[in-house]
């Protein structure tokens, strides 16, 4: 069983912009590795260099933040799990956004990192509030399906199955999938192609 993830609390970092892809989160040259060790230091490396110190991840006000607040379609593009691995190792344990790309979302779940979405108005209010007062605590509460901050208690959406997996500590899917036991082989053997389309 993996750890139960009911709520994540901490200070937050606001990263504005839509359609931020995983090539930007972790450039492909850092995928030349056989472990994820040390990948956190390269999170958003090229964007940060180009921003010359003005990137959210280099903003001293957001230093030590455990929650990343993002825009629409965050994590689109490549399926590289190196992206959430880099963000996790940089220090983020939860993501709040307008929407998340599906593979990125699945990769986060597999690492026990919740991705929750807010309505447009709430997200803007939260971003504004955290930028004004970066020291405030932000709480992602999966049990209550809310995000709380000085901007108020906001309803947060997360897919039921994903939420359940995090709440039950069953997000490390391998252990859960193994429990199916021989049902896996039964399903396989009922598929004509698995038996090479032999006559039955």
């Amino acid at each position, binding site marked *: 069983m993996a750890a139960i993830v009911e709520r994540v609390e901490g200070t937050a970092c606001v990263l504005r912009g*839509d359609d931020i*892809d995983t090539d930007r989160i972790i450039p492909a040259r850092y995928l030349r590795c056989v472990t994820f060790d040390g990948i956190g230091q390269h999170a958003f490396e090229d964007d940060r260099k*180009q921003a010359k110190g003005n990137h959210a991840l280099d903003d001293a006000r957001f230093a030590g933040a455990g929650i990343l607040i993002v825009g629409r379609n965050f994590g689109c*593009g490549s399926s590289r*799990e190196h992206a959430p691995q880099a963000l996790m190792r940089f220090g983020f344990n939860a993501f709040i956004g307008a929407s998340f790309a599906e593979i990125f979302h699945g990769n986060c779940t597999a690492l026990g990192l919740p991705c929750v979405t807010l309505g447009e108005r709430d997200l803007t209010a939260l971003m504004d509030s955290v930028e004004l007062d970066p020291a405030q605590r932000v709480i992602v509460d999966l049990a209550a399906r809310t995000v709380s901050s000085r901007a108020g208690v906001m309803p947060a959406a997360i897919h039921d199955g994903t939420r359940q997996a995090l709440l039950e500590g069953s997000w490390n899917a391998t252990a859960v999938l193994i429990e199916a036991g021989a049902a896996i082989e039964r399903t396989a053997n*009922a598929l004509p192609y698995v038996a090479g389309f032999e006559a039955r």
Partner: protein
Amino acid sequence: MPAAKSLFDKVWDAHAVRELPDGQTQLFIGLHLIHEVTSPQAFAQLREMDLRVRFPQRTFATVDHIIPTDSQRRPLADSLAEEMLVHLERNCAEHGIQLYLPSSGKQGIVHVIGPELGLTQPGMTIACGDSHTSTHGAFGAIAFGIGTSQVRDVLATQCLALNKPKLRRIEVTGKLAAGVYAKDVILHIIRRLGVNGGVGFAYEYAGPVIDAMSMEERLTVCNMSIEGGARVGYVSPDEIAIDYLRGREFSPKGAAWDRAVAYWRSIASDAGAPCDDRVELAAREIAPTITWGINPGQALGVDEALPLLSQVPDDERAGFAEACEFMGFAPGQKIAGTKIDVAFIGSCTNGRISDLREAARVARGGKVAPGVRALVVPGSQQVAKQAEAEGLHEIFRSAGFQWREAGCSMCLAMNPDKLMGREICASSSNRNFKGRQGSPTGRTLLMSPVMVAAAALAGRVVDVRERL
């Protein structure tokens, strides 16, 4: 009479092992494709958990992302790349997994070799640690791009825990004009529906334009589903898919072939099958399409100009301005005439034999413009062999293109093939993200392989319809 069902529902239901306590579905994966980039950590975790690969005979491996295309001689010049390849070899040997190395003559981009070996078949579920796994949907398979933890899940259990997506049917009506290719169709679809329009959906491509496409064209369309936000994209199998599979190495033979064909026909979407959303697009509206920005939805017909800021919806203006600044384009500027530095023909989107044939038609007898670096990278060793048998490599070489060995190459620049500085690349690949082609400030214009070939000769973006 049973209720009409979509291919998606039929295949999903046949592979559902059980409903998980959290409401997700445990789905059996019929074919697992692995490569050197996203598998080493998964094997390491498997070892830590003291588990074996559950279905090694349903798992196939190749090396594509990091392989150099000038020389594949071992050890690879890049020691990090060599280490990844050594890990892949060791993991495959330890677990009894078939690995296609360059020495096999069957190595290539994982999404090119799956279909050409006949591994990819209708009605399968397929997973691979690569977002372009949607490519395999062209055969009527349900194919998922996954991350490394999920690669571990599939290695250990041959299953994934998934939320079932909704289904959107995209019908492309009419007939494509000359000079308009499958690449233009999918770029047009993404432009219309948006880069996040497909989040939460599987895309079923249908209609007369898709029906008339060859398998290789359908592979191009399904390949870029993920660029529209859809993790899965597919086409129902028909005679074109069945003809393609006949005689392939892993295709069923003899009486088994007949049973396979009957099964493949049975899993096609039924007429009137329900879906959650339906979109119709007309072929006559599709021109040779080209991206100008930093995501694949920022695209134009080659004869169009960038919009003015006032024409961009409010919530897209920040992204529009960011893209203009990065690309060095002004609002209202025409895309045709843009000077290019590099031309890249290849990738899992457009690195198959029909792509090379079409590009060679344009390249034949021409000369790459001075100052332009032009690369042709076949998608697999078998594609390269076929192209060489047809003399395509000589056409490209005499026009001044470099003829390379098979791999992902400059699509994502994990090997030595990279843009330098702010170079602009006319590229037949799938992503124009910032830094995608290896230089953090490099710029990518996505287009069809014939448009790339035409741009290489002209030294600037041109409308290929004027040259056919």
